[in-house]
């Protein structure tokens, strides 16, 4: 979350000076977002890709220049490169059947609306990859639009449209029982 950016900044500064505990703190702060992105984009093998990405991050951290928010973008672009390599290899091999993705089965907690990770992954798998990527970079890794555009190497207006379409598709796929009332209302209304 941007709320812990001061923490991230401190950890980054110390880690760049060689502090291992600070690097561990960086890992704790950044790994959930990166793993969420990887789970949404590649599904199986996300942990392996994350490990490879972190090896590169650990090696190249002295090269990095920027603050905590910049570090999110930098780590995201490294992770994305590994993810795309993985996807290319996987696409080159036998294309896995798409039917084995679990159906959208929401496990809605009574107190608050919460999706299971599998459901979220299943929903994201139905999106075109750029849309899913834009949504995930934006909301899982918590990048701003400029950083998403830089990570995806696309112009900002394109990223904006991708994000909006991706979110619209997500809302449509999730259906009215899972989304908040505002989404349901917006889906019911003619565009």
């Amino acid at each position: 979350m941007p709320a812990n950016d001061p923490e991230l900044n401190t950890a980054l500064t110390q880690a760049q000076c060689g502090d291992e505990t600070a690097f561990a703190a960086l890992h704790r702060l950044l790994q959930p977002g990166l793993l969420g992105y990887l789970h949404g984009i590649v599904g199986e093998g996300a942990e392996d890709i994350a490990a490879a990405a972190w090896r590169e991050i650990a090696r190249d951290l002295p090269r990095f220049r920027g603050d905590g928010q910049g570090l999110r973008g930098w780590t995201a672009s490294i992770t994305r490169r590994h993810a795309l390599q993985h996807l290319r290899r996987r696409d080159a091999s036998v294309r896995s059947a798409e039917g084995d993705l679990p159906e959208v089965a929401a496990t809605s907690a009574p107190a608050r609306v919460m999706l299971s990770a599998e459901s979220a992954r299943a929903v994201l798998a139905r999106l075109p990859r750029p849309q899913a990527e834009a949504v995930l970079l934006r909301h899982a890794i918590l990048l701003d639009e400029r950083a998403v555009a830089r990570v995806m190497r696309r112009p900002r207006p394109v990223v904006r449209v991708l994000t909006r379409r991706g979110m619209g598709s997500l809302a449509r796929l999730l259906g009215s029982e899972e989304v908040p009332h505002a989404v349901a209302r917006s889906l019911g209304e003619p565009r």
Partner: protein
Amino acid sequence: MKADRNGEEALSGKVRRYEDAPRPSTPENADASAGLERTAELIAAALRQQSLDDTAEQAAVTAFRDARILDGRSPRTRRSDDWRPKTPRQRWVRGGAAALVTSALLGGIAFASIREVDTPPQDTAVPGTSHSTHQPPSHPPSRRSSPASEPTATPTAAEQLPGTPKTAAQPPGTPKSLKAHCRAYERIKNRGHALDATAWQRLVQAAGTEQQVAAYCHRLTGSADESTPSPTQRDKTRKGHGKPTARAKPSKGPADRN
């Protein structure tokens, strides 16, 4: 839902800024986009909530330690590693550099085109002011020897216009600029106050007195025409030229057409 939304806006303002770009005009639209954001955040939260294992963290830290051991010095920062936010100063510098390059380019083109246009008329202007048929030059080879006869011309000619030193074949004292002044004098002697200028003063200095200017110019341009083989086609421009008493005061010019 409203309370939920407000709370999240406070939490993640950066992520929500995008919402301002589309049309936030109607409350329905705002509600809808907020709902969409909420959906996306639900998905993202579901993906982020996965438990982290310590082995991954340990592996990362080990990789970090190994990298530190392997190379102690800090490597060069590539462009893809620079995620510093762009400061306004950087933007100014970039904009200034772009403006500089653009203006240099346009200025160069403009300058080149000026030279291009100017060069042919200069070639034709020399025979236009020729007086070789009117009065043969008193000493045709005076091109080289003329600077010796006017000692005052040497320092003045040295500080002349930038076009002067380009003719390296001539000695530095050759009053080519004085020749140019003579030609200009032919054209403008009856008009305005141009002859009051410093260049005119230099010409007078070089000629000796004001009355000798015409004869002096005769000599100069006449000898120049000798060296250039171009024929004298426009002799009628000579009409007002023969008067030896050319005046600096334009009001006294008899052929005043202005």
